[in-house]
């Protein structure tokens, strides 16, 4: 059955899932290529874990089709899909040693003991678990348990690895380490992986392709930097990037084909935008990433002005929160150099990288593409 020549490892076609009449997944179609690391990201309750469980076979879709390695597995038993899963809780068998945990699936398959031992040894070596093989999970640290959970998945040599928020139980520094380990492992094994997280930093750093989910629907699919540079809508713009993109309300004054000119509470701003059309007088959202807002140099007029209300110094960089004159809503955030000379209550004039500004219409959809990003199609450059 298996072994057909296919380039897509996982294929979802209009997959829907309802629980008690409540639609959780509202028609998701997606291709995951062989060897790709695809990350489902979205807020709590967006359906990302449900989607992963549907791929794993732990839940059955209400409608639609799921293919893995070219086979229709929509209703296949989880063990017949060629998938291995790393659970958020690790799901290690607490009464078994590390070696027994890793060997469990192989024992169930009825492999000879010598073969099982060899495979367990190999996996333990890759994951630096050799000295822990005789320990029970309760005698391991969080990071070690995580590696055992990964080892248990690797040893089965599945077609697809599924990760369900595997780092969310770890503290921040360990999460960073494990993220790098998972990225390295993915590169080494070149295994197709589907990874669920609510953490956009994990998504950006690990993914070949990010799938942004919201309320059971895909908002956008793309390489990490593609989503960052060209968010298709306000939701993606707000979700991808930390600190999040600043969104300012404005009205369209005119649209020339070269630029969209906006009326803002602080005057007129012309946003370069080739070929974009926007109806005069329509409400529009101006999106500016924190790193594309700067404190104007002395003598420079700037585009906006306001007062600093809070400064967060992180060492290498500084976040300044500025309330803009005349604008409603949240203060804007500036990402500045760690040594930036700003202080609370300071009146500041701000310049905007207009060529990197984003526009979203009343429906929240992107209006054209920022000129600086128009020619860029990928360049994900995540951890290898």
């Amino acid at each position: 059955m298996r072994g057909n020549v296919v380039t897509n490892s996982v294929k979802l076609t209009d997959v829907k899932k309802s629980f008690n009449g409540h639609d959780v997944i509202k028609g998701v179609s997606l291709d995951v290529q062989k060897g790709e690391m695809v990350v489902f990201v979205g807020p709590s309750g967006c359906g990302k874990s449900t989607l992963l469980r549907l791929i794993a076979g732990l839940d059955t879709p209400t409608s639609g089709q799921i293919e893995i390695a070219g086979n229709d597995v929509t209703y296949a038993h989880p063990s017949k899909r060629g998938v291995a899963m790393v659970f958020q809780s690790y799901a290690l068998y607490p009464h078994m040693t590390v070696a027994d945990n890793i060997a469990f699936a192989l024992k169930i398959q009825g492999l000879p003991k010598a073969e099982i031992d060899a495979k367990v040894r190999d996996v333990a070596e890759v994951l630096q678990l050799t000295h822990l093989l005789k320990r029970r999970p309760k005698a391991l640290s969080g990071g070690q348990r995580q590696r055992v959970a990964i080892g248990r998945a690797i040893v089965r040599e599945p077609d697809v690895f599924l990760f369900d928020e595997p780092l969310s139980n770890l503290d921040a520094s360990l999460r960073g380490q494990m993220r790098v380990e998972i990225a390295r492992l993915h590169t080494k094994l070149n295994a197709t992986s589907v990874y669920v997280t609510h953490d956009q930093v994990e998504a950006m750093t690990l993914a070949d392709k990010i799938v942004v989910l919201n309320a059971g629907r895909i908002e956008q699919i793309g390489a990490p930097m593609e989503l960052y540079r060209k968010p298709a809508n306000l939701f993606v713009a707000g979700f991808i990037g930390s600190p999040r993109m600043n969104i300012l309300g404005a009205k369209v004054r005119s649209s020339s084909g070269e630029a969209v000119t906006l009326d803002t509470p602080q005057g007129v701003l012309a946003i370069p935008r080739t070929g974009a059309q926007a109806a005069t007088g329509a409400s529009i959202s101006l999106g500016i990433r924190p790193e594309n807002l700067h404190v104007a140099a002395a003598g420079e007029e700037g585009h906006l002005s306001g007062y600093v209300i809070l400064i967060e110094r992180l060492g290498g960089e500084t976040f300044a929160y500025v309330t803009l004159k005349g604008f409603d809503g949240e203060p804007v955030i500036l990402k500045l150099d760690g040594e930036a000379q700003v202080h609370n209550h300071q009146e500041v004039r701000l310049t905007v990288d207009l060529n990197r500004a984003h526009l979203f219409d009343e429906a929240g959809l992107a209006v054209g593409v920022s000129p600086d990003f128009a020619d860029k199609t990928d360049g994900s450059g995540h951890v290898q």
Partner: protein
Amino acid sequence: MYNNKLIGSLYVTPFVIGFLLFTAFPFVASFILSLTDARLQDQLGAAQFTGVANYTGMVADSTFQKSLGVTFAYVFITVPLKLAFALFIAVVLNFKLRGIGLFRTAFYLPSILGGSVAIAVVWRFVFAGDGLINQGLGSLGIGGVNWLGEPTTAMFSIVLLRLWQFGSAMVVFLAGLKAIPEDLYEAADLDGASRMKQFWMITLPLLTPVLFFNFIMQIVQAFQEFNGPYIITAGGPLKSSYLLPLMIYEEAFKYFNLGYSSALSWVLFIIIAIFTAVAFWSQKHWVFYAQDRGDDKGGH
């Protein structure tokens, strides 16, 4: 501070008095009595110290030996059967089915009624010569059985009464089953383990603390069984259901041998203590305490 201690002591006093009067004193008194030839109808002062005579006397007492054998048989049959049955029902009631709460309640009801005198009386009617079971068998054209008149079937009837009270063990098993995380079964599903393998390789090992608790409780309760043999079979026929607690009762209140009865009580106490001690000692070989399950935030 002083007042707090005084108030605290006052709160504890009723329990302390109750414990001293109704537990500690009888406990010590029964041991002293077991070293005498005290008889129920005589003044306690008339009792003579006989040393360990009551204990050595048991060696030659064929009734005691018969009773001891029957008691061991009863315990060895009922404890595993009851545990297995309670576990089986708990596993069934752990399924996520519509109206499962109703079934759980229904299965627990017998344990509320328990092995009470009333139920034992009902049991006697059910197993009587013209009782419910024989009537049922008769309607199927099967000849009745003299349930309470044959040594093997008399034992069977009191064993069945014990099994019927599986509810409390079942509820403890059910709580244990619910404490096993669902994701372990999901991981096992992905690993290709069948339901049966999941039960033997995951459920049962993780249930051993609960199994251990139930085992101890059942051992203690089975050794102390009294209502069944007293009301249903009166220990007969031919002492085939003459459990040790019944013998203790009859020695004290039928034959008035208070000293000997106390010695029997102490022997029963020591037997239960040995079984419990062995169970506790053995638990390191078969009881698995999961403690934490791997979701702390520890470092490397």
